[in-house]
């Protein structure tokens, strides 16, 4: 059995990418760093969909369609997040999230 013809290989790779992304979200303090980590997490989800699509799903078009939708939503999310980052930088002169505490009581 070849290594790239097994479902488990892709699932483990997706888990690894997801864990790296979660580490980035928890450890980074720059807003752009957090956005980059979120993109990694979304890609892990895409890999999962494509792997199930390749090995288990009844029709191979479904997983590809879902992956394309994930990409479109990620593009929208990146556009919004980047505009928020620019707005936050204009207000605070920094994109460190530990300085963004204006709502603290």
């Amino acid at each position, binding site marked *: 059995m*070849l*290594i*790239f013809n097994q*479902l488990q290989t892709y*699932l*483990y*790779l997706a*888990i690894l*990418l*997801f*864990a*790296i*992304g*979660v*580490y*980035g979200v928890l*450890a980074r*303090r*720059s807003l*752009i*760093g957090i*956005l*980059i*980590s979120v*993109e*990694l997490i979304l*890609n892990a989800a895409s*890999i999962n969909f*494509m*792997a199930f*699509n*390749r090995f*288990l*799903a*009844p*029709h*191979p*078009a*479904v997983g*590809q*369609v879902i*992956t394309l939708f994930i*990409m479109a*939503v*990620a*593009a*929208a*999310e*990146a*556009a*919004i997040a*980047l*505009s928020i*980052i*620019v707005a936050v*930088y*204009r207000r605070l002169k*920094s*994109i*460190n999230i530990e300085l963004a505490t204006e709502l603290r009581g």
Partner: protein
Amino acid sequence: MNFIAYLLSPAGLASGAFLLVVAIMVVGALIAVAARNIFHNVLGLAMSLFGVAGLFLFLNSPFVALMEILIYVGAICIAICFAIMLSQPLYLPPPPRNPLKVLGALAGAGLIFAFLGLLTKRTTWAPAAERSTDWSITTLGHYLLTNYVLIFEVISLLLLVAMLGAVVTARGGRGSS
């Protein structure tokens, strides 16, 4: 000798290419979260996304692989580069890392990795009883314009709203410019 013969056979070449793609993906992801310079992070993200596109090629979907490169590497990474240029100057030194926070993040990510890995190991995955073998892009296009046409339109509306929202947010809101 036997090993070299295997390495040059089609299966061996495919396995080598797969390992290369996986290495590109993992190393890129590590650069994307671990490097100090924010610009290196974006380059690592682009490298990792190229690796993911390679995985999609191995999963029989060249169209989605090309879309991955086009949308993620071509659009999102470039947009992040613009945001970097518009925000924090690169010559400022990054703030020192808090080792406690890094350790906590490592522990959290490791826990999630262990949990999901065990879950994957314990589960038996059953393929669908009847599986179609129609992988053509034509079928994909038909699906997008018949079964999934509503989601397709809603996605385009979402992109329009996101674009307008991004313009309004980045300009500083109504009446303040």
